[in-house]
């Protein structure tokens, strides 16, 4: 079963890499409004994703293991905006969001291993301090 997710991951990594979504330069140019590349990719992905979800909902398709599909979105809490802003700063610094960190490593940008180490530590720090944060 997990084999299919490995294949999906490989395909996802190829798309991220070939479209240079994993590039610090592309992220930098996105935030500087120098080019529309990233905005168009995210926009097109959301449109295709949203239309697909609507089609799946209307046709009542089940997953291959026979379950009704789970369309449950994440429930809002007070961390969504401050956490999002903190991540946005990290995204601009490293030029990588979570998926692309792994793609950067595979693409031979080995300093991204350091980004990954920081991210794993950051995730742990959140859990270590989460009782003191507003949610």
């Amino acid at each position, binding site marked *: 079963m997990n084999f*299919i997710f490995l294949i999906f991951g490989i395909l996802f990594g190829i798309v991220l890499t070939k479209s240079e979504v994993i590039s610090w330069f592309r992220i930098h140019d996105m935030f500087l409004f120098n080019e529309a590349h990233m905005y168009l990719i995210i926009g097109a992905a959301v449109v295709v994703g949203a239309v697909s979800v609507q*089609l799946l909902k209307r046709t009542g398709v089940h997953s*291959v293991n026979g379950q009704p599909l789970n369309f449950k979105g994440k429930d809002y809490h007070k961390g969504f905006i401050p956490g999002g802003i903190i991540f946005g700063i990290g995204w601009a610094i490293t030029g990588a*969001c979570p998926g692309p960190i792994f793609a950067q490593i595979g693409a031979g940008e080995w300093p991204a291993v350091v980004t990954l180490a920081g991210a794993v530590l950051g995730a742990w720090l959140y859990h270590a301090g989460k009782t003191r944060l507003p949610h």
Partner: protein
Amino acid sequence: MNFFTETWNWYIAGPLIGLFVPALLIAGNKLLGLSSSFEHICSIILPKAKAAVLNYDVRKNGWKYYFVLGILIGGFVGNFIMNDNRVAFLPEIYHSFSGMVKLFTGGILVGFGTRYANGCTSGHAITGLSLLNPASLKSTIGFFIGGLIYTWSAIYLF
């Protein structure tokens, strides 16, 4: 002009990325989201007692481990095989010690921020917006506020 070796346009890559939302739903009833992979790695490397604080079920989320492993392989295939010339994705400065300190700091913000916001670009911006979830829109706006503030202030301050 060779489709496999040149940079892919937005109208190729964007729709392909969007198709992973229905593909993962149909294949395993999974919602695409990648920042929880940090917790996954953390749960694996920490001793059991210390990993308890993460409250993360490695077995239930095993698919994510395979998915990010796949992304890593995909990065290799995309840059070394499906390419005539290797593309640099990080500025040269990040290959120095001071650059790596910066990457580590940024990485901490990525890990902390995505877990506090309960999602990243894939979980909130792609999946959450595809589900038309207003909570994910708020987070996505947060991503851009943070990124814009940092990028523009870095230009004027440093």
